[in-house]
């Protein structure tokens, strides 16, 4: 919405195609997300949403098509190189460092972007402590700082993963089902947090979500995927009014 005529879209995907064996997971997908936009991706299981996120983050190389991040075309970059371009992602099944404490997980995220990840000076880690604690406060996990991640709840792990991604100062956030498996209240608390941070920092947000209430509350625009392709795209009210979308996806929700 804030994107002027001059600025590049944050993400531009054209003709993306990916096949696993003979199974077509992505079928000429086009997607343009403006800078600062909040975009939800919805669609039934197996529609290709995770595969799309995996291609955008460099995890999977597409068979055909192009991906541009802020005007820069990706050419088979590895995930860590895409991360350095300012694309941060979370996983459908939260991906954290399970044997470390919550504090050390956040410390890892700061360490990764400190420019001194190879340093042997332990003192450098101590200088990051205040920022780490402040970040844990932002995601309201400061009370669990010294708990090992294996011992915290599923919802808190999702929250931590989001916090770690934030700590790497991304420009584009790709969240794959950030609230999957959470209770109703937890779910809305997390999405409120995500929205607050996204708006405050002017980030671009692309999130996959199954909870329709969450989608309509958060998204400025919605992409509906089905069978590996983009089935519909538009503002929330347009999608809600689209009878074809209702048939394949929203139908169940009445």
């Amino acid at each position, binding site marked *: 919405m804030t994107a002027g005529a001059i600025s590049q879209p944050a993400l531009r995907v054209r003709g993306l195609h990916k096949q696993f064996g003979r199974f077509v997971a992505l079928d000429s997908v086009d997607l343009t997300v403006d800078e600062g936009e909040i975009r939800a991706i919805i669609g039934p299981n197996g529609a290709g949403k995770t595969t799309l996120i995996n291609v955008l983050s460099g995890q999977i190389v597409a068979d055909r098509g192009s991906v541009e991040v802020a005007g820069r075309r990706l050419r088979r970059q590895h995930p*860590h190189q895409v*991360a350095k371009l300012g694309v941060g*992602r979370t996983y459908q099944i939260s*991906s954290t460092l399970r044997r470390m404490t919550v504090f050390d997980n956040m410390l890892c995220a700061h360490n*990764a972007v400190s420019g001194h990840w*190879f340093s042997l000076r332990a003192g450098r880690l101590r200088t990051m*402590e205040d920022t780490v604690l402040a970040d844990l*406060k932002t995601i309201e996990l400061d*009370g669990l700082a010294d708990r090992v991640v294996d011992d915290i709840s599923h919802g808190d792990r999702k929250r931590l993963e989001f916090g770690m*991604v934030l700590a790497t100062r991304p420009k584009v956030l790709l969240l794959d089902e950030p609230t999957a498996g959470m209770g109703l209240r937890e779910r809305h608390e997390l999405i409120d947090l995500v929205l607050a941070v996204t708006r405050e920092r002017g980030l671009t947000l692309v999130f996959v979500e199954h909870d329709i209430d969450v989608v309509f509350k958060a998204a400025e625009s919605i992409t509906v995927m089905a069978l590996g392709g983009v089935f519909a795209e538009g503002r929330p009210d347009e999608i809600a009014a689209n009878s074809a979308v209702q048939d394949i996806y929203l139908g169940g929700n009445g």
Partner: protein
Amino acid sequence: MAQGDGTRADSETALQRRDPYAINWRLVAAVVVLQAVLLVVSPPLVVFALIEVMIFALYASALNLLLSFSGMVSFGHAVYFGLGAYGLALSITHFDFPIVLGIIAGPLVSAFFGLVYGILCVQLTAIYAAMLTLACAEVTYAVVFQWFDVTGGDSGISGHVPTMLGLAPHQFGLVVLCVVTVAILMLWRVVYSPLGLTIRAVGQNPARAAALGHGRKSVQLIAFVISAFFSGVAGTLFGIFHGNVFPDYVGVLFTVDGLLMVVLGGLYSFGAGIYGAIVYKLLDNLAAHYFQYWQLVVGVIIVIVVIVSPSGIAGLVRRVVERIGRRL
């Protein structure tokens, strides 16, 4: 309510947060003094056993950097141990290095091979990488064993350095104690530095580490070279201790010894190599003394320990310390 609790807990952690990874100098001093006293008062046979334990504690700790922290498995780590001893020997016999330079060359030769083999091994992951470490080790063993003109084949090399540098056993023991202590403290600094945090992140979850911006290959390669270097320090000490070097030093038995020590000591714990070396060598000596089938006995004991405490001796120690701490 939960909010209030959170804030209070935070201000406490902020105030009380002491660095859990700072070196516990008092503990280090106590262990070093105790060991020094043991070396001085014990009869030579015990001193020899203590020296061997120290050398293997370093070797296993170096291997543990890979197994517990970097997410790699090496099925051929004796290569880096043994090449330390070969580096020492060959630099003296073939390049006329003075002994001091030979001692420095040993670990560097190990690190160099760690770099070369490491570059190959990090291209793969999991069991495939582990099998490649094994293949590299087999190649090395074959070359060392068969290149008679250079390595002396299976009769090895000896006489290049006076056994124990010509020192009395307890004197040499004190030298080993110094070197091993410094080396293990350096490994501690590696594991709990920014680099170590990176290594542990990549080791625990390469996908998350990548999403944070870390490339797996380069980080694992660094860990591999560091591990090879310190294994080489241990191997160099071993070569001086015995005043010789044989192909066995790069062979599969030394590899298995290291692996067993780490597993016995307790994966995912820094002390694994130290605990493992002490208990394994103790078992080894005692069992060989009292039982005909001592290797079987040692094997059975290891299986029991691993079943009773999957976190190994380190886990047992941690639980005992916690229990005592709660009583006090």
